[in-house]
């Protein structure tokens, strides 16, 4: 018995995966965008399952409120605000010494997507916002790479596999839901069980897509309600939807810089102004009612103002915001996404 057989024998013994699946897993290069609850768990599981090349993309840093649900990070990393990709890489390297890790401390955007997502066989979504997902979707559709969507909030988990032949994310969701109908982990909370379920469903789809390319998973959006508990399968449309610009016209809106969220540093105090991508303006009243009480959110004079641990966010009717408490546009954008969703 070789060392590989000894290590992975128990998963090779599962008939639908088998030694062939293991081989294909070992030869694949995978990317994970976002190393939060989903991404950190996927990274660990994939490293354990025998993936040998893993690219980790995230620009966030570890914080104490991550630790209840995110793998790979501990109190030291939170205290020192270590970038997640670096904290993760250190732990992952310990799981398998010859694992090739490519940590990328970066915010995925249209201008760096080719560099960050290039040369990968499959991409896993660990992001927390629709804007990034459309970007992954469009890049993958354009470059013929499969990707696996995942999301979790509250007690709910979702996952789906998207293959280049379609349908794609835009076929299912032509537009991002408005911010006020899109709860975030900050506003609606998150149980680790929901995160674990979403990541497990993603992992399962990933193992099947990679391990059994001749028998890909059927096109379902998996929706798990972990408290009830209950898993529903929502069938995708059979093929690409007629009105999907990506599948029918080969147009990739998220790859054009115009639609990217722009962050702009201000002169003045520790503050960054965020201009959201084009779209309907947020409903400030609904947003205000959804924010937890400790934010002391007030809606007055047409501005929604909330306190956050880092400082303050002021959201204006047209969706622009001032994030106070940082000079770093990337951090400001992350705070905006975290509290106000996208």
């Amino acid at each position, binding site marked *: 018995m070789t060392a590989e057989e000894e290590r992975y024998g128990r998963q090779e013994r599962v008939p639908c995966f088998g030694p062939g699946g293991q081989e294909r897993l070992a030869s694949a290069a995978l990317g994970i965008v976002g190393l939060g609850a989903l991404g950190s768990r996927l990274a660990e599981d994939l490293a354990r399952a025998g993936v040998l090349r893993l690219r980790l993309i995230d620009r966030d840093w570890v914080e104490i409120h991550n630790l209840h649900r995110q793998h790979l990070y501990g109190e030291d990393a939170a205290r020192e605000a270590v970038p997640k990709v670096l904290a993760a890489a250190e732990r992952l390297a310990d799981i398998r010494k010859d694992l090739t890790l490519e940590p990328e401390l970066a915010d995925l955007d249209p201008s760096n997507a080719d560099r960050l997502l290039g040369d990968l066989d499959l991409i896993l979504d660990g992001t927390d916002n629709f804007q990034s997902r459309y970007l992954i979707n469009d890049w993958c559709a354009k470059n013929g790479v499969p990707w696996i969507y995942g999301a979790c909030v509250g007690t709910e988990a979702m996952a789906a596999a998207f293959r280049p032949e379609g349908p794609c994310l835009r076929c299912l969701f032509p537009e991002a839901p408005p911010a006020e109908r899109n709860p975030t982990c900050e506003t609606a909370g998150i149980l680790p069980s929901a995160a674990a379920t979403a990541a497990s469903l993603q992992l399962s789809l990933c193992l099947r897509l990679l391990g059994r390319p001749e028998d890909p998973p059927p096109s379902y959006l998996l929706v798990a309600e972990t408290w009830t508990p209950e898993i529903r399968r929502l069938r995708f449309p059979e093929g690409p939807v007629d009105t999907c610009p990506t599948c029918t016209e080969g147009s990739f809106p998220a790859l054009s810089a115009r639609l990217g969220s722009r962050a702009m540093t201000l002169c*003045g105090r520790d503050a960054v102004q965020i201009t959201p991508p084009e779209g309907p303006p947020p409903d400030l009243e609904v947003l205000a009612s959804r924010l937890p009480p400790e934010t002391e959110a007030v809606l007055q004079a*047409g501005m929604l103002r909330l306190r956050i641990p880092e400082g303050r966010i002021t959201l204006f009717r047209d969706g622009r915001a001032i994030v106070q408490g940082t000079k770093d546009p990337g951090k400001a954008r992350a705070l905006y996404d975290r509290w106000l969703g996208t």
Partner: protein
Amino acid sequence: MIYLDNAATSWPKPPCVLEAVRNWFERLGVDASRGTSVRHQEVGRILADLRRLLAEEHGTEASRVILCSGATEAANLFLKGICRPGMRVWTTALEHNAVLRPLVGLRERRDLRLRVLEPGPSGVVEASDLTRALEAGPPPDLLVCNHASNVSGAVQDLAALGRLAKEAGALVLADVAQTSGRLDLQGLPVDAMIVPGHKAWWGPPGTGALCLSPEAPVPLPLHEGGTGSTRALDRMPETLPEALEAGTPNTPGFCGWLASILHVRREGRGTLLARELEARNRLWELLAPGEEEGLWRRTPPAPGRPLVPVLSLVLVDLDPVEVGMGLEQEGIQVRTGFHCAPYIHRHLGSLEAGTLRLSPGTDCGSEAMEEVARTLETLCRTLRD
């Protein structure tokens, strides 16, 4: 929309400016001195007229009007082309980064000895301040001096400051960005002025000029390259203005600028300024109660000096950025922050977050100013609760 950011760039531009720019794109399409066609000649006449008018306004000869992309390029051209290593340069704390950054860069690269004169209680550097400084030690080789602060609107006595500096043997570079097109600049005792086209002249952005006085030394070129004339030469021509103008000029912009200068002359410089100042003065009055209430402090003009339509509020316990965006939501466009003038804020008490600047244009009626004051008061009160 009530537009109160004319100190940055005036808006909306007079229709004749758009027409002139459009005319270039639709009908002319060529640069002067890059050919001999009728169209080249027409463009040549436009540029000649532009230089002639600018020369007249700034008290110099047409050939000594160097067309630039703006006052910033004009400042860089003069300072980098004149300052020798080790030169003593004095400037004031009212300056804009258009001159300060080149000066600080030259201090690092050419060992310039830079001294910043601080304003007194009047908010400007007075002639007496400069006299004292001159008596205290060796005079500067160059004085770089703002005419009006783009933050507070305070106007310095350029005639007196320039005369003192020149008597002491210094060259004088004046930044007239906020006064050119508003105040009479002929006969000022300065060697050069940096002039933007897109502020009080109502021209398009991307236009400006360095106006060298008839006696001023000619700086070394900032750019070297094609000039259209004397084509066979492999070095820059020595004649002005070609010696300092290389590369394809912003001809459509200059066409628009000429049209805007003609517009200002037609309407009357004094008439336009009076309309701007009416709005500025109305604002000044309307904002007094807010100052008494402790919401803000207004930046006062320099006593006994002319006014320009620029006014800042130093907000008390509020970030101007937030208030500015709140105003924008109500259809009022102002400018917040430091306005690219880093030093003046230590005198205005606005070092932390800058100011909220109000710079009305020629079409801001009294009612609009009342709306601005009302909205400002409501916003500041609400945000401070």
